[in-house]
């Protein structure tokens, strides 16, 4: 058990609950040709799984996206569609 802190203090980590993207039954897909970089999907993603790049373009981190679909629901130009997740 070496490497663990002496006290019961947890350390911050992405994926503290594992690869939560595996929970997904539906997958949001961004159509970048329609995206207006308003960042609403980034703002409203409860998971922080919408990655915002320097130039304010966005990308979904499928390792952790749980597929709630809020991004698609809030996108003002319908640039995000939700499709069924496959094996």
């Amino acid at each position, binding site marked *: 058990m070496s490497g663990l802190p002496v006290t019961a203090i*947890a*350390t911050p980590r992405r994926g*503290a*609950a594992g690869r939560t993207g595996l929970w997904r039954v539906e997958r949001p897909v961004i159509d970048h040709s329609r995206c207006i970089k308003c960042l609403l999907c980034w703002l409203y993603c409860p*998971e*922080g799984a919408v990655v915002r790049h320097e130039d304010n373009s966005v990308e979904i981190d499928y390792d952790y996206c*749980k*597929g*709630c679909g809020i991004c698609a*629901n809030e996108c003002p130009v319908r640039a995000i569609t939700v499709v069924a997740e496959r094996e």
Partner: protein
Amino acid sequence: MVTIKELTREEYWLPGNSSCPGCPAALGLRMLGKALEGKFVLVVPASCTTVIQGIYPATPSRVPLLNIAFAASASAASGLRAALRIRGLKVPVVVWAGDGGTADIGLQALSGAAERNEDILYICYDNEAYQNTGIQRSGATPYGAWTTTTPLGKREHKKDVPMIVAAHGVPYVATASIAYPLDFVEKVRKAASKSGFRYIHLHAPCPVGWRFPPSKTVEVGRLAVETGMWILYEIEDGVLRLTGRSRVLLDPSKRKPIEEYLRAQGRFSHLDERDVEELKRYVEARWRELKKLLEERGGCLR
């Protein structure tokens, strides 16, 4: 006004945590982290957020976080603040508690800390029931709502905690909604810039307990505000003013019919006409009170 683009890209509540899909608490914690750019200490009583932290040795929280017993968050935060003061640290101490831990179990400690004007920021994220233990009613559950302990719908109205806190005469009280994150961020920053006891009540629609699809969390939160069921305001030094979307809703004709809010959620699906009328009466009465307060006394509570 805070804009989306000026919010930091940095995340202080990391992805891959144990929150349910569409969780309003996780969204609120993200926004809190961005509002204060990670420079604060959290105190969390038993709540969904205890679960969202996951299990040792990893946590999604990049800020120091103290887990504490259900009834004790405001007291623990008071002590923590005192200890930090002795060490000469100015870092804000923020309580992040659910509605059960605030309206019911933590109310005594909350009232005590408010009365002593402790230098803490207390945020209640209100998902209107004990969601993580299995959707039991709380004092903050609204009239008519189904929960597992109110199978026919709750018979009592929602406890008005922000006004209870305001009655203590504390420097800052505000309501907010996860559907309006920038308004929330602004209130957190304003609260953090003040000293003494500060309180923010954050409306947080829960897809699991309120029975709506997880994609609708923000939409349901927005409907709560647009129908007047949830009112955005702040009370600075005893003076109330409406904020954001709620500013234009004093005129009843500007408010959407509350049925739009009720229909979006399974927890209200059993309501009959009389229940809907009772909710309408309650909402109208609250707005009338606010209108009177604003028009006759300029928002002065005392």
